[in-house]
């Protein structure tokens, strides 16, 4: 039902866990929904050559990214019979343990929503021009690459 409304995906800084509760609560009046599937990306304290990541600083080619997010939504709605889909991605600094990605889809049936969320996550990782600078505890950094 939100299909045509343009969405703002990027949020500044980490995504608070309360946003998840809030998004779910907002869908309790939609009584055709039987299943929600949620994916959350959390910044990991990876160790590289003895140094530990403390945060990722996200930047993006924002205009292109919003366009790609839109195209992914359109593709998802045409592939999967989902009721709603919401995506939030952080920009700026997100500390280890904090959330940087929140994908949320809803459908009448479980298989559809699980597949749709998976589709969103894979497409976002592969196609959206977002860049991540992994910052170590000594203030040095390396550039993250999706696998």
């Amino acid at each position, binding site marked *: 039902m939100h299909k045509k409304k343009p969405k703002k995906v990027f949020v500044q800084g980490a995504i608070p866990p309360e946003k998840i509760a809030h998004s779910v609560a907002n869908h309790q009046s939609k009584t055709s929904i039987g299943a929600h599937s949620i994916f959350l*990306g959390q910044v990991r304290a990876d160790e590289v050559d003895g140094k530990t990541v403390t945060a*990722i600083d*996200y*930047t*993006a*080619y924002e*205009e*292109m*990214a919003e*366009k790609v997010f839109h195209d992914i939504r359109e593709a998802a709605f045409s592939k999967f019979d989902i009721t709603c889909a919401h995506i939030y*991605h952080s920009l700026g600094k997100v500390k280890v343990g904090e959330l*940087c*990605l929140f994908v949320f889809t809803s459908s009448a049936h479980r298989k559809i929503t699980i597949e749709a969320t998976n589709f969103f*996550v894979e497409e*976002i*990782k*592969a*196609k*959206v*021009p*977002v*860049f*991540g*600078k992994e910052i170590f505890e000594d203030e040095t950094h390396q*550039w*993250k*690459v*999706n696998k």
Partner: protein
Amino acid sequence: MKVTVKYFGLVAEAAEKSEEVMEFDGTLTASELKAKCLNGLSITDKESIQIAVNQNLDDKTTLKDGDEVALLPPFAGG
């Protein structure tokens, strides 16, 4: 002819800039412009840098006046 070039992530870091307007005569493909922009920069894997022309991934196209070209290092979203 003028094109705007945008640099992101490790490319912006190596180039020490995030955007510039380049002027040149004659024709240039997106990948020729990329080679020009990355020339001399300390980037290990230049193959991994993708090009977007007017927000679409494209390294084949011949550039037109006013195009917006972006040099995009590997994606790290999510």
